[in-house]
Structure formats: structure tokens, C-alpha cells
């Protein structure tokens, strides 16, 4: 994966590749709706099984260089950059209970600091007829 500047992007709009894309809930769905149809379940009261070794770079270096691509390469809306009310800064929120165990983050993270480990046994998707 290239950096935004290397790929020729200008400006800060990280949605520009998909400007025309709408989720009509008939043919197209956002990730959260799709993930609902994977019947994913994880006990929420456990440590996140996506180990991000250094979350300090998310709001700084990664935002600038790649526009936080984890929000895009993850097909299950696990990674989300949010505004932290307490600090007023952006931070990474890991919605690990959405995870469908595809391992894309472990492969794609440009800094190779996401380590996917299995969550508590029994967690994950419940695929039927897939």
C-alpha cells in the first residue's frame, strides 16, 4: 500500500475514492449492516484480541501518511477513528466484537503493528450455508 501523497492524493478527504457510493439497504449495505448478517458474537467483557502495539501513531503519523486505512481494509467495521471527548483528540476505537476473523488487518497494516490473536473460545462469526 502506498502513502496518500505517493498515490497522488491531495487534500484530506479520505472518502474521495467512493464519493458516489451510497448504501441503499436494498442492494448495497454498510459494513455494520453486513456484519449483522454474519451473526458475529464475542463476549464484550474481554481484552480486545486485536493487539495494536502503538496506538499513538494512529492520530498522527498514520492519519497523515495513509488516512487510517484500517477503517477501510477491515470488512467488518472493527477499526474506527473517533473524537475522544476527554482529551479532545482523535483516537483509535477497536470494535473487536464485530471481528469476522478474516485477518486482513494483520496483513495490511502499513506499520505491521496490528497483531491478530484469537479471542476467547467460541467468539467470532457463526456462518451458515456460507
Amino acid at each position, binding site marked *: 500500500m502506498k502513502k496518500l501523497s505517493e498515490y497522488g492524493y491531495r487534500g484530506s478527504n479520505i472518502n474521495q475514492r467512493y464519493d458516489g457510493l451510497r448504501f441503499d439497504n436494498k442492494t448495497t449495505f454498510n459494513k455494520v449492516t453486513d456484519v449483522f448478517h454474519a451473526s458475529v458474537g464475542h463476549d464484550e467483557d*474481554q481484552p480486545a484480541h486485536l493487539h495494536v502495539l502503538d496506538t499513538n501513531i494512529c492520530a498522527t503519523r498514520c492519519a497523515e501518511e495513509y*488516512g487510517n486505512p484500517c477503517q477501510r481494509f477491515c470488512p467488518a467495521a472493527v477499526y474506527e477513528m473517533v473524537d475522544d471527548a476527554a482529551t479532545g483528540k482523535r483516537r483509535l476505537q477497536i470494535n473487536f466484537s464485530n471481528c469476522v476473523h478474516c*485477518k486482513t488487518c494483520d496483513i495490511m497494516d502499513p506499520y505491521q503493528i496490528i497483531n491478530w490473536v484469537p479471542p476467547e473460545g467460541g467468539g467470532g462469526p457463526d456462518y451458515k450455508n456460507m
Partner: protein
Amino acid sequence: MERESLEMDVVFVGAGPANLSGALHLARLVREYNEAIANGTRAGESLGEIEIGVIEKGASVGAHILSGAVMDPRALAELMPDYAEQGAPIETPVLEDEFLYLTKKRAIKSPITPPPLKNHGYHIVSQNRLTAWLGEKCEEAGVNIFPEFPGAEMLYDRDDRVIGVRTGDKGIDREGRQKANYEPGVDLFAKVTVLGEGARGSLTKQLSQRLNLNDGREPQVYSLGVKELWELPDDRFALGRVTHTLGYPSDTKTYGGGWIYGMPNRVISIGYVTGLDYGDPLLDPHAEFQRFKMHPFIARLLNGGKMIRYGAKTIAAGGLHAMPQLYADGVLLTGDCAGFLNSQRLKGIHTAIKSGMLAAETIFAALLAGDYSAGQLSRYERLVSESWITPELRSVRNFHAGFKGGRWLGMANAGLQFLTG
């Protein structure tokens, strides 16, 4: 609370097609051997009872299994020649093959289907149902399957020989504290541990780094498949039809392609594969799939239908030269975590099953020899190289790499391979 440990003979990590086939085949080899000793048709000593365990992180066997899928039944027929009579959930033979090139507005049907995408004689399957059925067959054969037990770390002796696997703890809260239901993971000791974790297995990653199993190999390349099941209102997409697409919405620098398979009860499997060696940091594989569905040809097909299931899974697409060393002291690698998938044919179930069977044959020989060293287990790589897997994977070794120069180069490369392969 004290950590429990359990001595087994062979532990398989991951209840997918590779490992379940391996466990089943091994149980049968041992049973047949012991029977032959008992009735005097073979000389030697009985192996006695061989304890075979399979651990699986999912809540049930098959819960984490997802594939397209069109299956070449070759390996399943070797594992179980009467698989149909044994109730394998394989009810849909491929009846029609179609290969489409999508421009932004149009779908251009190729007058011929490229030979690697010809699927006559194959079956459209639900891989998660097929896997659940394989799990039942394993249990009938005396294999112990432990769902809800993920492998958390490998166990090594002081010489870095693998001696088993530790399963994950249960009952740890979000702050890392023990809850009332806390149970530490179990140490499963085994003569041979078999990792069949699927693409980018977490234990495979630890093991490969520690024992340098990727030394001298090309880096693995991956693709991500994003899939939905749809119920259509009528028979507009024929049962047994297999459609593959190339072109829109992938940009010309990105490897990508779609599939639509006609399943029973007017259900279709529809999905989109994106090569994870893409360059654009703003690319979103799920959004690529949504765009694929908005193509006029696809949108018309889906109109009035209902999306009923969703899932996503990576596959290892690097082929022969990206495969790690498949063995070390006390351990073997099977299936997708070892890179056995044929990326050109988009098929890895048959090679996964075969890899599991060859692992079983290797372990059986090791049990007879009482030797679980890397030297003994290297027999596995020899069996793989002598099997039909290797010529099949050799013929596609440049396929995905060919797309790195862009789609047109990739298609030219693929076209040459279709002709020469």
C-alpha cells in the same frame, strides 16, 4: 487455579477441511494397521490406541468456515470414495460456466471460458456445511474435537522442538482481570502438532518467525474475499451456474474479480475478491464489492432479492514459492496457513484436503518409526512434491504476481498461462 494439561498423540489446530481430512485419514490408517496386526496379515506391533484431538476456536465445527465455493472433488474422492453415499452435503453439480468482462456499464460475455475457470465435473458447495459434515465423520472415527478452544501459543521444549499447544484462557475481563468463570488455557502435549489455521494463522505466524520457516521463500501475497448470500425471487440465476467476472469495479492496477454461484432454493453466493497487494490507501474491499453489486448487470440480477448472510475471509494466493517450510521438529503445516491454494483456479479446498491427507501419512510413518524429528517429518514435503498438488501449483506460480504491473499485463500473463498451462 491450576493449569490443566493433557497428553495426546496428535493435536490438530483448526477444524477446517485440511485438518479434519488429516485427522480422519490418520484415524483410519491407524485403525487399518492395528486390524492387520491383530488378524496376522501384517507383522509388527500394534500402535495401540492413538489419541487424536482437533481444537477449534469457533463455537462449532464450520462456524468460522467461509468459501465461494466451487470444489474440485478430486481430493475428497481420495479421502472417501463413497462421499456421496456417506451424506456429504454436495447437491449442486456445476452445470454452466460463464466468464464476464465488466466495463462500467456493460457485461461482455467471453465466448470461451478460460480453461482454469472451467468447472465441469465440480460442485458448488457450502464449505461451512461440508466442514461440519467432515467433523461428524471425524467423531464417528474416534477423533476428539474440542470447539471453543483456540490455540493461544505453541509449546516448545528447550531445543525449540514443538511439544504441543496451549489453548486460550477463558474468563478474563476487559482490564485483564480474572472473572468468576476464569479458566486458564489447557496445555495439550502431542508427539506431532498440526497447524491448519487458515490464511495468516496466528500460531503459524509465531512459529514461522521463531523457526525461520519463511527463509528463502517469496513473501506471501493475500487476497480478501467479501461475500453475501442472496435469496432471489425467482429462478433468474440457474441452479448450478458459475459466473466469474473481471474488470469493473477494480481499477487497472488492482487485482480483483467477482463470482456468482447458483445454489439450491434460489439462493446465490455472490462475492468479490480484491488482491491485498493493492496500492491505493483509500481502497476499501467491502466498498469494491458494493460497487460490483451496483453494476447494471449485477444490480438487475439482485433486484427484488434479499441479502441473507455476510462474511469475509482472506486467502493466501502466493503459490508454490511463497509456501513456508512445511515441517519442523514435532510440527506440520496444512491448508491455507501453508499457502496450498491455487489462486488461478480460485480453489483451495481440494489442495487443503490433500495436504491434510499427506500430513496424516507422514504422521503415521512417524508413529511407526517412533520419531517425530524434523528429519522424519520432512517426508511430508517429499509427499507433497510427489503428489498432484505440486504440478498443479507450479503451473500457476506467476498468476497473481502478473497483476502487479496492472490488469492488462496481468491478463496477458494469465492468458499466456491459460495457453501454456
